[in-house]
């Protein structure tokens, strides 16, 4: 006791390696803000900010690899009084997020110059958001999940509205902000109810309580579960919480859209899987039907919604809802196989989405002016390489064999088949919607290979700069390599799931 009569606080031990990936990204973001305060000339500030961002991402990746080796030998562990879990799962998702962040920074490197936007602030916001995603992947407490969710979301609200001279970007930012803030509040309400029902916010604490005590009245716990599902369903863009997705993906600057589709989805799914499997793993009969409905709705809304769109960015937004449905098929299986298939799907979808949006950004040209399907007409004669790359990525998204997309879809279907029962029906619906979605992808591909007619305006697309080129090559190469030899990625995902802390 101290003189004021307040009980002294025991500070939790910190395992610095466990928090290093998050801290290094946040430090890089702070460094960028610092050097922006000192260097006022954009010609100096932007390149140096890019270097700081690259160093931050690389150091964070090194820390993740060090964690991976440590977890392999010593097993999973928690730190910061069980707030942060360091396990194979968090490291795998962290890797996906870092690769997606690196790709989005590469995409943005020339884009910001082209659009005359402030570079350093953009990079700082993106790194902050990514650090929140890493924190979300390893959050082992509902409060930690919520804080991480806010660290992810608040920079994203700004990034979506970043091109503030363009009204579509502002509108998208406003929509995302209003709905996102609402979703966060709903999630927090769910956290409060879960805490009320179980007396703990720690995921392991909740699991222990539920295994020891039989609740007489389950209403509070179920309401908490549903509200948390609503909040996270919003972030992963699962129907019926998908309303914002097409508008925001279309209006946001294209590198931000790529970042949201790949990294945000992975991080939000990480939190969803960890809450469901760690905290509520014993009551999977409660949440499996809920996820079943979410999955069916996402699959149907995503595929059918995409058919009636005429804008390629919106089509890809609906396809991202459809993909969320596929990942939910894996999650709802409620098995180890389900988790590892969802992880594989997230990793594969991350680079498919980044590559696709990179190409759309190039074709749409200055000011993200126009990503209408008309604009892709005759692209094959103008930009042969680009149109073949896009065709490859679209075929992969459709799930054609020998591409990475097939491996992803095969994984979730076999997980659903392994779970049996109603999951079979879900797998069938998934295959049906995959066929509908394939129509959309083939429609885009066919448009690119249709020669432009006399009356069609052929608008100049921008050049493929170095960063965008690297991203497109990278995602196409991975699509084929993983499609032909998926063993490495599948092995990683399996290993990560086995080290999943429960």
């Amino acid at each position: 006791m101290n003189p004021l009569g307040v009980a002294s606080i025991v500070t939790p031990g910190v395992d610095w390696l466990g928090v290093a990936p998050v801290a290094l990204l946040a430090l890089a973001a702070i460094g960028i803000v610092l050097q922006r305060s000192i260097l006022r000339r954009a010609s100096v500030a932007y390149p140096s900010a890019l270097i700081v961002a690259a160093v931050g991402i690389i150091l964070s990746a090194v820390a993740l690899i060090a964690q991976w080796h440590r977890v392999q030998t010593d097993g999973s562990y928690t730190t910061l009084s069980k707030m942060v879990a360091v396990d194979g799962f968090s490291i795998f998702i962290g890797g996906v997020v870092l690769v997606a962040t690196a790709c989005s920074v590469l995409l943005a490197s020339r884009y910001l110059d082209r659009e005359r936007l402030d570079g350093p602030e953009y990079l700082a916001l993106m790194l902050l958001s990514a650090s929140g995603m890493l924190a979300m992947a390893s959050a082992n407490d509902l409060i930690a999940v919520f804080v991480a969710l806010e660290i992810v979301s608040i920079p994203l609200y700004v990034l979506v509205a970043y091109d503030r001279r363009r009204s579509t970007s502002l509108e998208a930012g406003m929509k995302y902000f209003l709905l996102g803030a609402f979703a966060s509040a709903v999630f927090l309400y769910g956290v409060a109810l879960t805490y009320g029902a179980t007396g703990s916010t720690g995921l392991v604490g909740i699991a222990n309580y539920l295994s020891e005590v039989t609740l007489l009245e389950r209403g509070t716990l179920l309401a908490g579960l549903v509200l948390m599902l609503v909040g996270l369903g919003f972030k992963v863009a699962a129907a019926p919480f998908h309303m914002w997705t097409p508008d925001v993906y279309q209006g946001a600057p294209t590198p931000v859209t790529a970042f949201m589709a790949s990294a945000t989805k992975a991080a939000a799914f990480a939190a969803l899987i960890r809450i469901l499997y760690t905290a509520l793993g014993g009551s999977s009969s409660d949440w499996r039907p809920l996820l079943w409905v979410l999955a069916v709705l996402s699959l149907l809304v995503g595929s059918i919604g995409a058919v009636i769109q005429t804008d390629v960015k919106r089509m890809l937004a609906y396809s991202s809802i459809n993909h969320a449905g596929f990942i939910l098929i894996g999650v709802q299986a409620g098995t180890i196989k389900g988790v590892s298939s969802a992880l594989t799907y997230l990793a594969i979808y991350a680079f498919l989405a980044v590559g696709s949006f990179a190409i759309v950004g190039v074709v749409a040209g200055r000011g993200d002016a126009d990503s209408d399907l008309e604009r892709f007409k005759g692209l094959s004669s103008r930009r042969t390489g680009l149109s073949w790359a896009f065709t490859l990525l679209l075929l992969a998204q459709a799930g054609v064999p020998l591409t990475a997309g097939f491996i992803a879809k095969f994984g979730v279907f076999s997980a659903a088949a392994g779970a049996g029962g109603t999951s079979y029906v879900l797998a069938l619906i998934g295959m049906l919607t995959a066929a509908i979605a394939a129509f959309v992808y083939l429609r885009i591909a066919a448009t690119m290979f249709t020669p432009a007619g006399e009356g069609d305006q052929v608008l100049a697309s921008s050049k493929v700069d170095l960063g965008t080129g690297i991203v497109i090559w990278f995602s196409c190469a991975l699509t084929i390599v993983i499609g032909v030899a998926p063993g490495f990625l599948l092995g990683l995902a399996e290993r990560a799931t086995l080290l999943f802390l429960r």
Partner: protein
Amino acid sequence: MTQFYRNYLAVAVFAVAALGMVGAMLGVGRLVRPNRPQPEKYIAYEAGSDPIRGFGQSNVRYYVYALLFVMFDVEAVFIFPWAINLEALGVSALISMIVFILVLTLGLVYAWRKGVLRWA
């Protein structure tokens, strides 16, 4: 009525009492006060400067100041419990708080260099 809801009865009583008290104060004020309406009285008070007419009825520049204020206002929330326990917590807590304040100050420096603090 279960015990669970009975616990919340106090909240309901409190809410009714609060509404009644506010209603009584405003009601008595309305009965007692003189009523001499002038157009100036209906202008929003904005620190002496002319208010902007229209939707928000306030100058958007206040928003940035409010943000900067909130930044340090919230800082105080963390500093008070920290200060009370500083002796028990030791040097590591001092370093943590210095880092925390430095990061916040950096935000202020950034805003200042960005020219936000100039009213023009």
